[in-house]
């Protein structure tokens, strides 16, 4: 095992991904560019991480900014005073996060590590390890080059230096300068996405090709979202669903035919094959499973955007947990039909934006505790509780403590397709940097005057963990919003 002094950062066998959320990026840019355009500045930062089979995923959790006198104002480069280093090191003993240095290079200077940067990184990787004991050391360089943000990074962990291969800044597309080298020019858009390129620009189409979208649920809304994303040219899709196709799904699920139902084909297999038929160049990773199972989480944290398409409360919690702890911008959707006396009175569509700084579903009062508990129970437990509820009724007691029947949520294909296409559209807006959803939680009724559109925007609860664990990744596991039930079948990649 090499020490930190042997500073030859290489690409790891699996890519290293750095994720940043908007509030931290905003604060970081204010800080490190404060002496722009000519002089550098720096701060220490704290990072959560997850070591996945697909590579190391880091997330910026917080900054430990310099105070007066912590950096030398009289020199153009970064010179960190020893008390600042010691303060950060001692603080690191009180939290579980990785620590690193983030500094700027002058405007239009590549974020390529200089010999001074090499010295600094060698020193801090060794020095901080005495306090962090085996956690990664992260070094990032920010610069503005030709009016675009340019970011490079390297990490010392487990005895070796690796470069940061991908930088994902919430909704703002940014290309990593791997090892400080200028990214290669983007290839022109293929003819198949020429209309999209004409509308959004060639660069937008290229960004889609370089992007990964994870879709949880390949049913009515999910299959519609997947179809839109595949046709738009998203380069990599992660598709997750535990179920097989049934005949009653044929009305809604894109790409399905009766043979799929007859053969009980897993929905993710159907979706995978459908995507490949649309565009064989798309990299599809399909998992028979559910979020937040470990293998699914490993894949999802590498995505640029996560879409929740199950309309189940536990899944909504899992999506929010990924958004908050791993900084994956997410959208969750649901549909609902209401009616009576032969009339459809409500066709509700809901889209929930879950950015890393957004409140969790508990804060948004979207979770009914008993419903979540019932969703997460094993079939055996559900059966036992239904019997207990029946017995309570027979005794003249309320059945609710044992079991509450949930109404069947009926949906129809045009409704699920519309909502699935909408969230895919907003995902494309984020991935291309062209537009944002103009709401926090959209609800609309297709059969109400002017669609009865509402936006429900609330703040995070004062005591909620969602205010404290943004970017904590695996190091915030004790505050996870949900954990996978032990009775769920093992995940099967297909």
């Amino acid at each position, binding site marked *: 095992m090499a020490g930190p002094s042997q500073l030859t950062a290489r690409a790891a066998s699996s890519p290293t991904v750095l994720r940043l959320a908007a509030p931290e990026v905003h604060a970081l840019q204010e800080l490190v560019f404060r002496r722009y355009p000519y002089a550098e500045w720096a701060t220490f930062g704290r990072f959560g991480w997850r070591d996945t089979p697909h590579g190391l995923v880091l997330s910026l959790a917080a900054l430990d900014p310099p105070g007066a006198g912590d950096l030398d104002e009289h020199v153009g480069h970064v010179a960190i005073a020893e008390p600042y280093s010691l303060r950060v090191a001692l603080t690191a003993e009180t939290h579980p996060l990785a620590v690193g240095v983030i500094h700027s290079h002058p405007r239009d200077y590549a974020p390529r590590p200089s010999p001074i940067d090499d010295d600094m990184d060698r020193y801090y990787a060794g020095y901080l390890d005495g306090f962090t004991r085996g956690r990664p050391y992260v070094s990032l360089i920010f610069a503005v080059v030709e009016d675009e943000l340019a970011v490079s990074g390297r990490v010392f962990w487990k005895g070796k230096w690796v470069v940061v291969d991908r930088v994902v800044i919430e909704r703002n597309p940014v290309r990593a300068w791997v090892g400080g080298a200028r990214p290669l020019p983007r290839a022109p858009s293929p003819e198949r996405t020429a209309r999209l390129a004409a509308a959004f620009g060639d660069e937008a189409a290229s960004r889609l090709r370089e992007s990964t979208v994870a879709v949880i649920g390949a049913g009515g809304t999910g299959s519609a979202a997947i179809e839109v994303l595949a046709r738009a040219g998203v380069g990599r899709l992660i598709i997750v669903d535990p179920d097989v196709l049934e005949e009653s799904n044929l009305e809604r699920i894109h790409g399905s035919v009766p043979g799929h139902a007859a053969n009980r084909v897993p929905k993710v297999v159907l979706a995978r094959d459908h995507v490949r038929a649309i565009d064989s160049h798309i990299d599809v990773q399909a998992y028979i499973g559910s979020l937040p199972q470990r293998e699914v989480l490993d894949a999802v944290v590498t995505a640029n955007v996560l879409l929740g398409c199950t309309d189940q409360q536990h899944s909504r919690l899992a999506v929010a947990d990924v958004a908050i702890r791993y900084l994956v911008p997410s959208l969750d959707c649901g549909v609902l039909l209401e009616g009576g006396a032969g009339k459809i009175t409500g066709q509700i569509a809901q889209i929930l934006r879950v950015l890393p700084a957004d409140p969790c579903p508990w804060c948004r009062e979207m979770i009914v*505790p008993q419903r979540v508990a019932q969703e997460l129970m094993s079939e055996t437990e559900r059966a036992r509780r239904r019997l207990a509820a029946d017995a309570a009724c027979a005794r003249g007691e309320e059945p609710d403590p044992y079991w509450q029947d949930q109404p069947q949520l009926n949906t129809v294909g045009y409704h699920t397709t519309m909502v699935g296409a909408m969230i895919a559209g907003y995902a494309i807006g984020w991935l291309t940097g062209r537009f944002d959803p103009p709401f926090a939680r959209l609800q609309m009724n297709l059969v109400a005057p002017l669609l009865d559109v509402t936006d429900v925007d609330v703040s995070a609860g004062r005591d909620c963990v969602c205010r404290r664990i943004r970017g904590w990744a695996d190091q915030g596991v004790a505050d996870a919003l949900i954990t996978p*039930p032990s009775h769920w079948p093992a995940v099967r990649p297909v």
Partner: protein
Amino acid sequence: MSWERIERELKKLQEGGQSADLLRNGRSLVLYRDVPTAGAPLGLPSTTDVVVPVPEGFPAALIDLAGLPVGSPLLPRVKGGQNNQGIVTGDGRQWQLASYHPHNGGGGPTWDPMRHGFHTYLDHLIAWLARLS
């Protein structure tokens, strides 16, 4: 399962003087040791061990039920004790789960995972064992 969270909650109990362990063989349970009861004046045990199942998906799913050792003289006297919700095994003993639902319409607050956990469930267990019929 969020073992780290449960361990953190049990540590809080320990700091408050309540011994409790996480049992992870078979169905996961939290075992509270020597919880006080109001049984002494009735000739019943003044303390008892209690188990509580760890709900699947915790903390998204609420904590529910409570179990006493099979054959405990307290079982017929506690709320829901005669409404058997299943037998579970842990710590080398068998436990009968009683129909006790403090967060599920049983008199306690609505489940809030930001405030509630196995550390706060002890209060419900003490209240449960203090109201013997």
